[in-house]
């Protein structure tokens, strides 16, 4: 406790920096290891929060998915277990929790380049998207956006054009958007759990799958599927969410600290993401991985037109605003 003498000491900045709030530790779940783009983004967020709060708010990052998959973690947070306060998720993960707006971020070929995504992430539309789960009554809210690069298909056999993917068994997550997209390009979406994917590629149960470049390498998929076609069907948009419960426990100053650290981490993510990805791409090329550039994206866009239309009808106007932000 503070003695009366201490309270009279003039320290005007203290109140505003949140350093006199209650000491608090927030558990932060991260599915990937700390050395990935998203792991580093989380670390920077943690360091900034702890710096700004003078160590009063501690962030305990539990990485590598030890607290469960994205859906496990979201179920834990939305169910009010109090065991996980913050987590980094892919923006799309909120779709099965009524996240109609965040779903738009992973509609195939929405973002033409990174710049386009960051135009959105720094616009006034972003806070509206981030607050969607809170307004839906899901009990979580977004703090900031980031990205882990465009997602591309990779295959066991060489693939040079979209035509080459036709008839291939491609492993994608089991949601309607991704399944619709794979069907659109004439391939077969195949259900294989992520844990069995490496073996499934090795033995040939599936012919290919899709991941951002960095994850492709960090999961060692390039060892068994050494062909990647840079079609960039979706941008791996990520966001960091916090439970309303944890948010409400914070003082207004502490909330500001989280938001400021979020802006900082978001900017950091923007800075390293492309750089880290290019580095990985060079490493892959040096290892002899066959990387195919896609010069004309129109046939791909044409192929998935229907699924894009079907998945965006509910929010057509909003989706158009996203598309127009390039």
């Amino acid at each position, binding site marked *: 406790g503070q003695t009366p003498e201490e309270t009279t000491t003039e320290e005007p900045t203290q109140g505003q920096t949140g350093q006199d709030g209650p000491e608090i530790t927030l558990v932060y779940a991260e599915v990937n290891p700390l050395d990935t783009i998203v792991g580093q983004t989380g670390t920077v967020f943690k360091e900034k929060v702890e710096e700004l709060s003078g160590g009063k708010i501690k962030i305990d990052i539990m990485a590598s998915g030890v607290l469960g998959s994205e*859906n496990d973690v*979201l*179920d834990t947070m*939305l*169910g*009010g277990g109090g065991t996980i306060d913050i987590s980094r998720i892919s923006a799309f993960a909120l*779709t*099965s*929790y*009524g996240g109609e707006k965040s779903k738009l971020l992973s509609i195939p070929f929405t973002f033409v380049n990174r710049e386009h995504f960051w135009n959105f992430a720094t616009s006034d539309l972003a806070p509206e998207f981030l607050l969607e789960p809170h307004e*839906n*009554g*899901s*009990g979580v809210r977004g703090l900031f956006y980031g990205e882990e690069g465009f997602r591309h298909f990779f295959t066991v056999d060489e693939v040079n054009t979209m035509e080459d993917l036709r008839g291939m*068994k491609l492993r994608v*997550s*089991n*949601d*309607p958007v991704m*399944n619709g997209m794979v069907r659109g390009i004439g391939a*077969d*979406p*195949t*259900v294989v*759990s992520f844990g069995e994917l490496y073996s499934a590629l090795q033995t040939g149960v599936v012919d290919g799958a899709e991941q951002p470049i960095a994850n492709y390498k960090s999961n060692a998929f390039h060892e068994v599927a050494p062909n990647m076609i840079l079609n960039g069907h979706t941008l791996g948009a990520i966001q960091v969410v916090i439970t309303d419960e944890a948010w409400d426990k914070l003082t207004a100053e502490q909330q500001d600290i989280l938001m400021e650290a979020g802006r900082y981490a978001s900017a950091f993510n923007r800075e390293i993401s492309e750089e880290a990805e290019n580095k990985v791409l060079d490493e892959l090329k040096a290892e002899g991985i066959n990387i195919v550039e896609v010069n004309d994206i129109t046939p791909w866009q044409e192929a998935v037109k229907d699924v894009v239309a079907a998945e965006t009808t509910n929010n057509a106007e909003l989706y158009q605003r996203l598309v127009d932000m390039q």
Partner: protein
Amino acid sequence: MSNIFNTIDKIKPAYDMTYKIVLFICKVLLIIVIFITTMAVTGRYVSFIPDPAWSEEVVLTCMAFTAVLSAALAIRRKAHIRMTAFDKYLPKKLIVALDLLADVAVLALGVVMIVVGWRYAVLLGSRGSYVSMPSVSRFWMYFPVPLAGIAMVIFELEAIYNHIRGIFLKEEVYNEC
């Protein structure tokens, strides 16, 4: 005293019936799970057999139901793995007392599972759906937990009753299976 027990004993056929019904459900679920998995595999190679995106999530939910329902059956069969290494060194009365204690504790756990499991399933159900089936509420993913609680409570009540009956009638707790 034995009159009371004789009256309550009349409920035993109802228990036998419950056991059979739960067993029936477990068997059906196991068949469904094997069937769906096989269908998904063959569907990859045979065009007219479906290979639906929901196969994995449905299989897992069915298996969760099988797990919790069959576990309640194991309570009745006294089949759950427990440490019995020191049984031969312990007096018989103490073992009965410990069994009773364990059964009461599991009954309490069953009640906890009903209460928090239901609350959780309803909350998550109102907030989310299956990834592969946007129209199916996540409630069904977590409903096995309160259901398990109910099944546990039902069979634990019988086990506890049998202990008490055994103590009062000074006879071995009869083995009902």
